[in-house]
């Protein structure tokens, strides 16, 4: 946890998004395991079968930890930058994890899209005018 204070805030936001992205593929696995093809949110028996599945619990708890890290990042930076940063980073985890766990193929558009998102995250964290912790290091540019 001490690491969070030393790393740049945009990296914390990207980490938060990455953790939140663990939620969707793991929840998808748990839904397939519970045999829920057409899940409705008022389906109480469906919710119980999900709550007994460790994939679902792991996904939800990782997303919860991610949300806490997201709030930490949000308290330090502009909301209009932190939101796209963590949102974009979550797609990277979703694509990689759904390839590993669910066997969804990584197509060419997905690869290009991920590279463009990484470029966007880099540009945002490089150009944002947020106060930095190590002022002497980053005093030259911006």
């Amino acid at each position, binding site marked *: *946890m*001490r690491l*969070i*204070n030393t790393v740049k805030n945009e990296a914390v936001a990207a980490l938060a998004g990455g953790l939140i992205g663990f939620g969707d593929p793991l929840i998808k696995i748990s839904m397939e395991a519970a045999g829920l093809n057409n899940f409705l*949110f008022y389906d109480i028996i469906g919710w119980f079968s999900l709550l007994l599945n460790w994939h679902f619990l792991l996904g939800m708890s990782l997303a919860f930890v991610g949300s806490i890290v*997201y*709030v*930490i990042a*949000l*308290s*330090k930076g*502009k*909301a*209009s*930058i932190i*939101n*796209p*940063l963590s*949102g*974009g980073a979550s*797609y990277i985890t979703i*694509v990689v994890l759904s390839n590993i766990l669910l066997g969804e193929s990584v197509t060419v*558009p*997905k690869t*290009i*899209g*991920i*590279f*463009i*998102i*990484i*470029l*966007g*995250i880099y*540009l*945002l964290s490089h*150009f*944002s*005018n947020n106060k930095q912790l190590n002022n002497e290091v980053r005093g030259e540019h911006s």
Partner: protein
Amino acid sequence: MFQIPLENLLVSILLATLASAIFGVATLLFKKATMPVGEIKVQEFKKDFKGNVKKLLNKDMALAIILQLSAWLIFLMALSRYQVSVIVPVLSTTYIFTAFYCNRFLKEKLSWREILGILIIIVGVIILTL
């Protein structure tokens, strides 16, 4: 392949836009909720952990969580009506809504480079779902 009626497209795009507008409000409120604590630094936050958590869990935070969950449900309703590859790019308008609200209500100013970065991420999300 099964045919999806065209009005489902319109309804689901409307629902997804509504969801992203609400997601934007939720982000604004999350940011507002963290303001009483200021910049969270883990070491300083630990010193008065209970007091700081009480400061964080204020009305704005409660409203933000409720809005986030309701927007998520609206998004799921949109998702159940049409294909993911159409709905997820529509959801990425959240970033535009967030920038608009934060500029309006929190006086956050964005440089053109930051706007460019946000637009590049949106383009990446659109290409990802092609």
